């Protein structure tokens, strides 16, 4: 059914992505590809992978933006994946019932057996979360690693999405954003976490944490002065080496 659940559970699983910490290493995107190439949405087809125009399905893409001007500008790495919205138009536009939002935890999924590959859901998603698999002829998207987070054959510590498990900088957090007392909800509250394109009314579950304000000492236009390698007027071996190299 592509109508939204009439009585969804309060649980809303999702991600919190810290743009202050992300270093843009793309490990989340790569581990996502690795896990999901064997997961329920497999395969994540790559066409011409070693040719001049590789084209493949990825659920996670890391963009890098430059924000502001001059010395006050900053570089922000921006991982982009499905936000598992509370009002997902990608689900309601689906004509076949292939797209659905789970009532129990809010995860948005595609049943590939029902998908006719009309691509309308990807038009309805403002965030570019859905990528069409040209080879399989069906739409694919982030599953929030639904086949990992509930997998009881894994140790409990590993029951988090692949992107979260692999992030070397701990810039990605996973949890229940419907519970105001969860760790992720507290993090969002304390850091001013926000929605992407709130003006469209999709009410995304995933939240982004903004880059922290800069410390005042870093706001100068010139780099910090370096201490001289050899204190002026000193004698001894270092002064002799300095004279030798300077001469």
């Amino acid at each position, binding site marked *: 059914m592509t109508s939204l659940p009439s009585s969804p559970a309060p649980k809303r699983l999702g991600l919190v992505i810290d743009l202050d910490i992300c270093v843009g290493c793309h490990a989340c995107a790569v581990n996502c590809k690795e896990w999901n190439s064997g997961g329920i949405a497999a395969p994540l087809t790559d066409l011409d992978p070693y040719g001049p125009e590789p084209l493949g399905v990825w659920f996670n893409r890391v963009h890098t*933006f*430059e924000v502001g001007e001059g010395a006050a500008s900053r570089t922000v790495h921006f991982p982009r994946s499905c936000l598992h919205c509370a009002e997902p138009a990608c689900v309601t536009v689906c004509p076949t019932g292939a797209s659905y939002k789970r009532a129990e935890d809010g995860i948005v999924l595609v049943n590939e057996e029902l*998908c006719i590959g009309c691509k309308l859901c990807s038009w309805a998603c403002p965030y570019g979360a859905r990528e069409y698999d040209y080879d399989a002829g069906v739409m694919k998207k982030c599953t929030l690693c639904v086949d990992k987070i509930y997998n009881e054959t894994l140790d409990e510590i590993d029951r988090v999405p692949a992107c979260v498990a692999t992030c070397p900088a701990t810039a990605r957090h996973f949890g229940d954003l419907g519970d105001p007392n969860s760790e992720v909800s507290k993090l969002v509250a304390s850091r001013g976490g926000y929605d992407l394109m709130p003006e469209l009314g999709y009410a995304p579950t995933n939240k982004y944490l903004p880059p922290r304000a800069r410390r005042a000492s870093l706001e100068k236009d010139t780099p910090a002065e370096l201490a001289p390698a050899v204190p002026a007027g000193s004698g001894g071996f270092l002064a002799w080496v300095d004279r030798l190299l300077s001469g």
Partner: protein
Amino acid sequence: MHPAFSVIVFTTSSGAGYGLLAWLGILAAIGRLPGDRFFGAVSLALALGAITVGLLSSTFHLGHPERAWRAFSQWRSSWLSREGVVSVATYLPALLFAFGWIALGETDGVWAVFGGVSAFCAVATVACTAMIYQSLKPIQRWSNAWVLPNYLTLAAMTGALWLAALASLFTVSSLFTTIAALATIALGAALKLGYWHHIDNSSSASTAGTATGLGPLGEVRLFEAPHTSENYLMKEMGYRIARKHAAKLRTISLVAGFALPFVLSLAALAFSGSLAAGAGFAAALLSTAGVLVERWLFFAEAKHTVTLFYGAARA
């Protein structure tokens, strides 16, 4: 948005077909059908043929056309599903209407009711098509109140021109068929110009700043894309058309789709016999071609918010 040829052919061809069917149905309902059963056979064959060609064309852009029947299931939430249901449902009253008119030579009583129901279903199908686009919030150039009246009027216009052409071929032209053609051309041109004026003078509330949420920190510019070659999103949603090409195509669409058919329809009034029929068919063909160009532009000029993540400042 990528202008998919199959979808453009579908909306143009079945738009004209549903338009023609709607006019025939309305004329039957009010007891003013111009021609006999031979006129009925040719005009209904053209209407249903154009509808069928369009619907078949629309399945070509599907990844799994063999599963297309599944699209009838989600009419509660999906305009695409509603379009599928109504488009196929239209065949039932339309074929009964055709049976009465062509096989029995009857167009009144219950057969007129079938005509009226066919017209209603035809209009509803075109409305569903328009709503598929109008309901997509990420595409500001589609998500506005100009889209529905444009689709309805252009379908009515191409339908009216084909009706007028067939009527003059069978020498059953009436004031009604001529006025329907001229009035829908005038209305269609006004609505199309209104749509273009609207999209040229408005912009989406979404920017690179709101898409990333980094707007409060300053101007947001793409520094490095996530991948080196185009992906599905860029191929499907990132289609760009040069402004000067768009301007040229708008002129072509206006001249072929509206101006020439208007002049030819007026000329057909002055002519008689095969000259009038020739002018009528030229008008119908030109307007269909003009709408094809217009439909291509409708896609090519539409911008999707996903481009904000790939370097566009506004959508």
